[in-house]
Each structure stands twice: as C-alpha cells, then as structure tokens.
C-alpha cells in the first residue's frame, strides 16, 4: 500500500506473471518470424519482424481488454487482473519496438528527418483506401506511452484517481486507432480473408465480453429495495449473508456492501478508495474488510483503514429485525463511526 515513488518489488506472483508474459512474447515472435521465413523465403527479415511485433502487440491488447469483463463474469480469473498493468507495459514495449522499427525501416536513411517524413509523406486524408494509416498507429503509441509511464500507483495519487482513470480510459481511443491503423494499412495490401476475419473475431470477442458483463452488472444496478420502516430499506434475509462476507445492494446510483461478522452487521461503500475495487466481493480478514483486488483494508464499524493508512469509505446505518437486514440509504462521511447492528 505504498504511494511514494519506490522501486517496484517483485513478489512470487508478479515473477510468475512476468515470466509468463515473456514466454508468450518469445513463443509468438519465434512462431511468426520462424515459420514465416520458412513459408515465405522471399520476405525480408525486417518485414517479418515488423509484422510480428505489430500483430503481437494487437493480440496482447485484446487479452488486456478482455481481462476486465472476464473477471466481472467469473472471479476465478482475478489473478489475471492483479498485475494487468504489467501486461500493459509489456504491450507498450512491443508496440514501441514495432513503431521504432517501422520508422527506421520506412522513413530513415532518406532526404528528410524520419519524424517529418512520417507526418508528411502521405497527405491523402481525402481517401479511405490511401489514408495515412501510419499516423494513426503513431497517435495510438503516444496514448500507450502515457499510460505505461503513469502505470505506477504514485501517478494514481499524484494526478488524482479521477484524472488518472480518465487518462487510462484513453486505451479505448487507442484501440480504435490501432483498429483503423490495421484496416487502412495492412488490410489494404494483404488480400487473405483470414486477416480481416481474425480482426473481426477479436473485436467480436471483447465486445461480447463487455456487453455480457454490462448485462450482469445492470441487474445489480436496477435492484430496488422495498421500504421497511423509519426510512430504512429491506436488504434481504440475514441468513443469506455468509459469515465474514457481504451482500452488495444498490442505493440510488452507488453500491453498498453489507458485511456480516462476529454476530454483527455493518455497511460501507462498495467502492475501494485505492482503485475502485468491489469491497463487497472481499472478505473480513483479521477484523478488517479486505478488498479482493489489492488487499486494501477497512475497519467495518468506521470505514477507515487501520492506522497508519489514510483511506476511508462512507458508512451506513443498519438494523437487523425479524431475520431481515435493514439499511438506511443516507451515506455518512468517510470514516464516520456507526454502531454495528447486532444479530439477535
């Protein structure tokens, strides 16, 4: 839980994650360039490497974009999410290699500066088939660079979570730019139907995953709680909440996690202050609500992190009556102590 700019420490899980990424990269490039050289002996090595690096980066981007919705649909995939930014930085490295290699191959050694050549050699913005596709890739690379450079939690706090998240939503702009870069570039020269088919399959996969996750989450968003009494709402049977676990309910537009522990009930905002992880999907460990994403902890009665950590979440009043849990929709400021409801 460090936000100062310290060097990254590798634990065993991160090492396995990173070694797997490197293995995937090596396997891909060996297969693409190696088999490519055998099947197409006239293809120059630079062509195979540029294409190998570019297609690999796009495959990695699809995997990265799939992780979010897949984890929403099945929490067993969460280990893929924990170090997703390692995949992101690796993907940026491959993209940068593709970009630099292409810049050197196609624009250097000539009569103008390579970057000037990149931005001026093709002026056919009036045409779709002749559109300057390399610039689209260049702008996507800039977005990926900004994301990779700010991938450490230090930037999350320095820029503020809202600004940081807005910057990182740029991944969708980058994805669209890369998609266009391929459509208006490689697909204009390469005629095999397999290539647009694979691109379409990639798009269909991540779109479907996102829409499925959206549908699942919408059900929670549309949840309406019945009124109980005295302004409280009925949040369900107490027996439906497992010990040390939570039920997540929607109040207005935000979600609240109602935890059951040690014969008591407390409710806090479902949104972890670290990176908005779903607290209600975590458990109570050592007396603290523990976020399933990165392990940030909060004391259930106050919504405050145990000292010395500063994070705090909103708290809510609860009651237990006739075997039902009641919750009052009024959010109390982060860190407000609320007496837990006792289960009779």
């Amino acid at each position, binding site marked *: 839980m460090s936000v100062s700019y310290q060097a990254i420490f590798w634990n065993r899980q991160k090492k396995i994650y990173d070694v797997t990424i490197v293995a995937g990269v090596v396997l891909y490039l060996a297969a693409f360039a190696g088999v490519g050289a055998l099947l197409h002996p006239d293809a120059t090595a630079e062509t195979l490497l540029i294409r190998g690096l570019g297609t690999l980066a796009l495959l990695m981007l699809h995997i990265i974009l799939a992780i979010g919705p897949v984890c929403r649909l099945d929490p067993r995939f969460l280990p893929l999410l924990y170090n997703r930014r390692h995949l992101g930085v690796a993907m940026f490295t491959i993209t940068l290699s593709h970009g630099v290699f292409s810049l050197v191959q196609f624009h250097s050694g000539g009569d103008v500066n390579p970057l000037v050549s990149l931005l001026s050699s093709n002026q056919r913005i009036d045409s*779709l*088939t002749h559109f300057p596709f390399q610039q689209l890739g260049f702008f996507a690379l800039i977005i990926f660079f900004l994301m990779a450079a700010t991938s450490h939690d230090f930037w999350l706090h320095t820029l503020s979570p809202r600004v940081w*998240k807005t910057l990182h*939503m740029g991944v*969708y702009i980058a*994805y*669209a730019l890369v*998609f*266009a870069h391929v*459509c*208006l570039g490689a*697909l*204009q020269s390469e*005629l095999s139907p397999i290539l*647009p088919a694979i*691109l*379409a399959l990639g*798009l269909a996969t991540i*779109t479907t995953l*996102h*829409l499925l996750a*959206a549908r699942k*989450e919408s059900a929670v*968003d549309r949840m309406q709680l019945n009124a109980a009494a005295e302004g409280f709402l009925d949040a369900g049977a107490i027996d439906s909440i497992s010990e040390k676990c939570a039920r997540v309910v929607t109040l207005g*537009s*935000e*979600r609240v996690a109602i935890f059951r522990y040690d014969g008591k009930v407390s409710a806090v905002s479902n*949104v972890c202050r670290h990176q*908005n992880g*779903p607290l209600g999907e975590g458990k109570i460990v050592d007396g603290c609500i523990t976020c399933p994403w990165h392990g940030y902890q909060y004391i259930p009665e106050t919504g405050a992190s145990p000292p010395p950590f500063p994070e705090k979440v909103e708290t809510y009043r609860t009651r237990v009556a006739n075997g039902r849990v009641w919750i009052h929709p009024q959010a109390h400021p982060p860190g407000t102590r609320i007496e837990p409801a006792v289960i009779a």
Partner: protein
Amino acid sequence: MTAPLRRTHRVVWTVLALLLPLLLAASLAVRTDSTPINRELHLP
C-alpha cells in the same frame, strides 16, 4: 467500478460496437487492385 465509470463503459462499447465493424467493412470495400490487366499490352 463506480456508477459513472460503468455508464462511460456502456457508452464507449456501444460506440465501438457500431463504429468499428463499419470501418472494417468500409476498408474492405474500398480496396483496389493497383495493377489491373492492360489488355493492349503484350510483352514476352
């Protein structure tokens, strides 16, 4: 994920799901053959 972020994702993916297939179809439709046959050219 917070509600505003869920909303943004819904909008983003609806737009991408509509726009990108159109772009793919359009880019395939505009492909041209830059070396068509020249019927009057006979070379050994």
